[in-house]
């Protein structure tokens, strides 16, 4: 299990990286936590790798009044540990705790995970749930922002073009009065989830639910975002009945059977975890309002 040979390039600026990527038709090397195993299994043999790890400035975490901005080299662990990001948007840390094991998070990047677009990965779903943005640069067409609604195209397939470097991602803060949660079940602790559900619930001053949505992983080719506001809106938090929301989720997902779970079992988990996630997000909203 050794990778095939490749040409190695070490740019020191984003512009240089984009240029090398276009010129070599190679691949970006970020944390390598997804790329290197598949190269070692020779399931991928890119002719060239453009290593972002020595480009200065890409690891920053910027928490502004509206969003958490991360760079292409922000490691999962750094984002998870960042208290400002947690205060502004606790969902980031909650979801990151389910991304692999801590050792993988020390090296793997959140942007890399988003670009890799694994339908079982947590952070693409978080980006989608929050309506985030990926910033991309190509040497030919320059910079563009890609909305998360357009970013995830299929399993392991994103809207990023082969010559584009994803340089940053933006996670907008959830609105005031909101609560969030991540619920997931995996076979072993640290494995990709059999099903995972991120949830965002917004309450008004009267503690009525004004909006509620969930985003699920491992139940389709891309993260599945379901707006369940209509199934609940107007009800106060303690009177809410999520049954109709579970039906909406059930209708929206299309899970497959594999060696770890049948499709029917995944549907069951999607229902149970959606219920749990919505309840936790609601409780979180109440707690945050109270605080």
């Amino acid at each position: 299990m050794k990778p095939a040979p490749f040409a190695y390039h070490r740019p020191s600026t984003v512009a240089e990286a984009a240029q090398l990527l276009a010129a070599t038709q190679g691949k970006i090397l970020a944390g390598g936590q997804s790329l290197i195993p598949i190269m070692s299994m020779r399931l991928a043999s890119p002719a060239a790798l453009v290593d972002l790890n020595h480009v200065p400035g890409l690891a920053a975490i910027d928490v502004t009044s509206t969003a958490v901005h991360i760079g292409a080299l922000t490691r999962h662990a750094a984002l998870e540990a960042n208290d400002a990001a947690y205060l502004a948007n606790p969902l980031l840390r909650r979801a990151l705790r389910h991304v692999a094991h801590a050792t993988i998070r020390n090296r793997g990047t959140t942007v890399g995970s988003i670009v890799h677009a694994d339908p079982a990965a947590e952070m693409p779903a978080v980006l989608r749930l929050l309506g985030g943005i990926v910033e991309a640069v190509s040497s030919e067409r320059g910079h563009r922002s890609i909305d998360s609604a357009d970013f995830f195209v299929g399993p392991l397939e994103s809207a990023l073009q082969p010559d584009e470097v994803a340089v940053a991602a933006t996670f907008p803060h959830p609105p005031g009065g909101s609560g969030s949660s991540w619920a997931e079940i995996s076979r072993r602790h640290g494995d990709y989830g059999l099903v995972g559900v991120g949830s965002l619930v917004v309450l008004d001053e009267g503690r009525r639910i004004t909006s509620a949505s969930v985003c699920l992983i491992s139940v389709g080719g891309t993260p599945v975002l379901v707006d369940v506001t209509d199934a609940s809106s107007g009800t106060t938090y303690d009177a809410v009945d999520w049954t109709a929301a579970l039906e909406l989720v059930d209708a929206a997902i299309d899970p497959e059977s594999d060696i770890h779970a049948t499709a029917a079992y995944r549907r069951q988990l999607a229902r149970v975890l959606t219920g749990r996630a919505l309840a936790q997000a609601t409780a979180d909203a109440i707690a945050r309002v109270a605080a």
Partner: protein
Amino acid sequence: MTTKMFGQRVPRVEDPRLLSGQGRYLDDLGHDALEVAFVRSPHAHARIVDVDVSAALDVEGLVAIYTYDDLDGRTTEPLPLLIPHPALTHGRTPYALAKDEVNHVGEAIAMVVASDRYVAEDVVGLIQVEYELLPAVVGIERSRDGGDLVHADVPGNVAATMVQEVGDAATMIAAAGHRATLSLSIERSASMPMEGKGVLARWDPDDESLLMHTSTQTSTSVRQAVAAKLSLPVDRVEVVTPDVGGGFGVKIVHPWPEEILVPWAALRLGQPVKWVEDRREHFVSSAHERGQLHEVEFGYDDDGHLRGLSVRFWHDNGAYTPYGLIVPIITSTQLLGPYKPGAYRVEFQSLYTNTVIVTPYRGAGRPQGCFVMERVMDAIAADLGLDRTVVRERNFIQPEEMPFDHGLIFQDGRPLIYDSGDFPASLAKLKALVGWDDFESYRSAARAEGRQVGIGVACYVEGTGVGPYEGGHLRIETDGSVVVSTGLTTQGQGHQTMLAQIVADELGVSMDRIRVTTGDTRRFKYAVGTFASRTAVMSGSAVALTARKVRAKALRIAANALEASVDDLEIVDGHVQVKGSPGSQIDLGAVAVLSNPLRYAFDAGATRATQFAAPADPSVPPVPENDQPGLEGTDYYSPLRSTFANGMHAVVVETDPETAEIKILRYCVVHDCGTVINPMIVEGQVHGGVAQGVGGALYERMEYDAAGQLLNASYMDFLMPYASEVPHIEIDHLETPSPLNPLGVKGAGEAGVIPGSAAIAAAIEDAEGFAIAAMPISPSELFELRRRHAGR
């Protein structure tokens, strides 16, 4: 007095080296050796039409590509059938490199030798093999149908059919008040040591000798096999087992194709050659175990006494049978556990499939047998409305019935006679440990919280310490240190510590003066290997006997020197002294000097043994008749038959009513492995075994598709438990010494794994209220079972 080491929690002598990164595992050796990678079949069953290497020949760093046609002499023959058995009428073994046909994904077709493994893999990718696909036979049902054949000359895919019977089971079952049947299955798992296999071979053309390192559980037998296959005189071949990163059975199989091919290539190329198995290779070309289907019929009386038991089972042996019928024979005999079956008939068929070979994995057929027997006990209890432990107690062999002869033939070809054990006492301890009698109140309390819990119990007996023999060599050096060697190998069981403890007590020498070597044929040439929980019994006994022999000689020489009688001497802390008068003493190093009459002195110590040093008796030769120079000895231990350890596990689980997640809340073990040499090591063995039992019950399986592709050939998808999946284990011991060996010990290596699936299945069944007949079980499968039962 020197402190007694036997029975103490002595810290392991091997640890400081392993902990500081100074271990020497196979791939830590031979950094300059050429490296090997293999072209392995991507198909489960195919004829090889053509192997085209032309595209690969220009790769820089390529040294050689070999296919079957390049082999010569006895390397062209099929690999040996290691354990023949009269019932194995259609035994088949593979060639070192596939000849015309491949029979499982992963079978080696071509061997590439290159400057390093990276380049070797590049070359592998460029070799084109043309195949003609044949139908793949996967799974016991497909194989049993016999429609398609794995080997064209093996009708019905049946490698062997074997029957054993005591009493007339059919009649006894028919006559019993109650009768029932069960269909039970267990899936495949694998030993899966953290270190794969590996071989390093160095041919010395000047010395005309081969030095081979291999990550094996039997270096002595590899040596014989390699010498035979390479047509080398045995004394030109030495095999060394370096540190081994776990074995659990898979490394007892030998010679693996690579163990022949790597030295063969080293000889041809005149350069060191190394092969280190990677994880993917390990999944598809090393061995698996456990896959069996069982049909059970049994009769019992109103009190729950088993009157007759009839078991038919089908064993999936994979593509070849190099290890004979050991696994199914163990299932068929050890199935009985601590119970008297009334009459018993067992019949099995060993079947070929186009999958990786099946050979013993820790537990070796016992987990399946235990699962069957314990499911029978639970079924009787359920039917009669009896407490499950009561049914077990009623069927136990009683202590006063020991030794107990089952009337069957065990895996070593010897009668299945239990030497000792007190099963009622063990069960009583277990019930107390887990709180069996209080469980119903715990269950109600949990139910009140909306939680669903269950408890299960399973008992086993394990034949350990099987023969034929092991030996030990021991020498006291002139500096007073003691070097010990035994032929069998070590894969982490702490043999060096355990054997040093025995020697320390036998000789009266402190542990830090003792060095133990295992698995090095340069040091000890006669051995069988490490398997079947046999080291403490076999090598432990052999080393103890050897130490006694050397001690006797030391006392004899010291008696002479001290002008005392042997009977008045003792050895304390490395000194021979006259009992009660420690002033009159001689250290063992000096005794060693005296044991070796010298002509030449090279240091002050040696001077004492030279010919003019002291007046000698001129009437006897310097080395008397029937004696030999040196303070050393060799002895062997060969038991009449196996010893039988036993144990019982109780498990409490919680199953989530919504998600069907299965959580182990308690895991309790009562364990009897006879006299315990080092309780710390024994507990460690139990912990590790239980973790493998939990893995086998809830996480691990080999997922083959119908085409014979192994779908989960990685650690990502073959779910070996992490710490988060293994429960805290509570242990209690019982010690019923074995009367069969000088130490009273029984084996402990495999015990922990055996009842895992049985006990966990019972606990889940208890929580869910429906029968569990197939293991392992995942939450998804439990969910589907619930749906099926709800739909009824």
